[in-house]
């Protein structure tokens, strides 16, 4: 018998990135990573910058996302993110530079709270990109 599946959709303002039936989704919730299998309770959360992965059989796919929400309802998982990139779309050099820049800002003694928050978001975004880029091209 085939594994039960959930409908997984991931949309950004620019396009529908994923629309597939999958067996499992893992996403970076605001209070930590969570996994969704068929039969999950209705769930709505904000997401942090991080890695979204989904599995069909033995193949797993990864995406770096930031700025978003996830909704689980019935056997549907919907993620709305401002940015989502597959490993092959990520510019590692750029992400590395972004991480260094953010580190410098975080160490700097600017007590400006907005700058600090902004640097922190940039840092976690760069980190997520590097993590996903390290997964190698999908498929």
């Amino acid at each position: 018998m085939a594994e039960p599946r959930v409908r997984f959709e991931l949309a950004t303002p620019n396009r529908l990135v994923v629309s597939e039936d999958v067996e499992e989704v893992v996403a970076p919730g605001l209070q930590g990573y969570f996994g969704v299998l068929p039969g999950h309770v209705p769930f709505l959360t904000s997401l942090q910058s991080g890695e979204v992965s989904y599995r069909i059989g033995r193949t797993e796919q990864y995406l770096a996302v930031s700025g978003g929400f996830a909704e689980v309802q019935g056997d549907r998982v919907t993620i709305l993110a401002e940015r989502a990139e597959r490993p092959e779309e990520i510019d590692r050099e750029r992400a590395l530079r972004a991480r260094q820049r953010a580190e410098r800002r975080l160490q700097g003694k600017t007590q400006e709270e907005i700058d600090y928050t902004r640097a922190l978001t940039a840092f976690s975004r760069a980190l997520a990109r590097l993590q996903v880029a390290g997964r190698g091209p999908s498929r």
Partner: protein
Amino acid sequence: MATLRDIRRRIRAVQSTQKITRAMKLVAAAKLRRAQERILEARPYAHKMSDLLGNLALRTAPERHPLLARREGGRRQIVIITADKGLCGAFNTNVIRRSLEFIRQSEEASLTLVVVGRKARDHYRRRSWTVKSEMLGFFDRLAYSHAAELSTRLIQDYLTEETDEIHLIYNEFRSVSVQRVVREQLLPITPAAVPADAAVVDYLYEPSADAILAALLPRHVTIQAYRALMESLAAEYGARMTAMEAATKNASEMIDLLTIQYNKARQERITKELLDIVGGAEALRQSAEA
């Protein structure tokens, strides 16, 4: 009576204009296709966003969130979206005319304007209205980040209570040849009514429904602004394509007309020359006979 050379020169001028209008039409058509695709691609995100918003508004106390709360002040901010360039028929004029009507209906003293696109800026710079801010010259490479920049400014104006309502005026893309000027209230947000028979889902929220709503609302404003900018862009290309097609056709007609004139003038000249020769020959013959 124009000489032959004048007419020939005019034909050549009209022909080169026609080459330009035809090229502009082709460029607009290609860009239009891309712009239309982008509107379609943005739709899943936008739809899901308003569904979520409607759902959340039912489960929380929406009046508690400042972006949803209605205020009594009646001060308006109007965001006018035109193109950066002309040569697109009545596209820019229509938006500006509509914005002037809306300004007349508003209380002028408390009005602020935000202009997007060079044409709106040029028009309102010449008048006495306060232009609070402007965004220009980005339509060629329109991205979500432009919408984010615009919405951040608008949200800030709203939250600092510089204004009580924010409206958008822009051209909506109906079809290649039809644009419609629309006005929409951007802030405060009116959540889409959830149909009464729709099942309201009781979610598990993380961290809380209120916190999610607070994160969702600014993004909702941004996607609304993004949609308006993309609609305006597609409508602009549509309008330009139609305008340039009409211009190309007019040029063809003018070339035909000038060609007829040219041929007529040429024939007249030949006839005149013939008459001269015949007349001259006749005179010679008569003098020889004498």
